[in-house]
């Protein structure tokens, strides 16, 4: 018991250590420095958003491949020249294709990709709303005379059974 308790306490520490290790690895690659901390921040963000074209699934900020280094250098140079994020992303897509962006841009070719989740939520919500409205519309159901008599009979039988002491809980009685 004490051991599991201890492990429970250790888990956040282990997670924290892992997080710290990954940032250390990223920092080791990066050699770009900026005078303006805002630029450095945008550089970090762009490095994470742009995908290394040589790699299977690595951002240019995480990859050691030469092309990722070239791309980081170009991103940094463009940032220092005052280019906007969109301009930088555009320059990379122009050369390496849409693959270079982790999040595809919203355009005629990608509207389905971006729109589908929202579309599904709307459709799902519509179906739920339809059920709710239908149920509301139907209102409380009233019993027909025959059903009412049947119900009365069942209640009477149940009450009569409860009156017999010690046998109410016997499941075998009705069988």
């Amino acid at each position: 018991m004490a051991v599991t308790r201890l492990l429970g306490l250790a888990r956040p520490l282990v997670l924290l250590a892992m997080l710290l290790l990954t940032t250390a690895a990223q920092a080791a690659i990066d050699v770009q420095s900026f005078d303006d901390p805002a630029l450095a921040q945008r550089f970090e963000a762009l490095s994470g958003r742009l995908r290394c074209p040589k790699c299977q699934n690595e951002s240019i900020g995480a990859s050691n491949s030469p092309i990722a280094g070239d791309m980081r250098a170009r991103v940094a140079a463009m940032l220092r020249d005052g280019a906007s994020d969109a301009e930088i992303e555009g320059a990379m897509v122009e050369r390496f294709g849409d693959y270079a962006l982790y999040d595809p841009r919203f355009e005629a070719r990608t509207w389905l990709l971006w729109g589908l989740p929202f579309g599904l939520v709307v459709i799902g919500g519509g179906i739920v709303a339809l059920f709710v409205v239908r149920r509301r519309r139907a209102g409380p159901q009233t019993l027909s005379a025959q059903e009412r008599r049947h119900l009365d009979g069942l209640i009477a039988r149940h009450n009569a059974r409860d009156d017999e002491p010690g046998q109410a809980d016997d499941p075998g009685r009705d069988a």
Partner: protein
Amino acid sequence: MKRRLLLLVPLLIFAVLVVFLYRGLSHDPSARASAKLADRFPAFDLATLDDPDRRLDRSLLEGGDDSEGEVTLVNVWGEWCPVCKKEMPQLQTLADRGVRLVGVDYKDTRDKGHEFLETYGDPFDVSLFDPKGSLGFDLGVYGAPESFIVDGDGFIRYHHTGYITPDDVEQVILPEIAKWR
């Protein structure tokens, strides 16, 4: 009856998903359409490998003095790239078949570049010297070898990433060049 059919909807969705994902399994993740197709060859100003004082720009590919609207295969290579060595016989075949070839010595040193051409042959009309990989970057090159077929007006018509196999020469490269001649 209508209710029964509705029960089939999840199965249908599942079937579509299976087909979609199964296709993804046989899809080569490194193969993708080039972003440069139908684009004008990027501007450059580079010295040739042979002569540091002879600078060339993209008029080399746009029907200048001696190209005159000729379809050209631009091959990006480097001495450091082992596959490029294996590709040279195929490039020689293309040159022998009358294809104009322009080389781009990518991220290399002059000495290494010369050494490479002396050892493996020189099928190129001219080789541009791109030590920093600036032209390569503008071409969207992310490894060598890569080849571009450029039409007589200097527009990129085909982009081959990676090694040109002997089969590719006959089945892919020559037909593509014929298409744009």
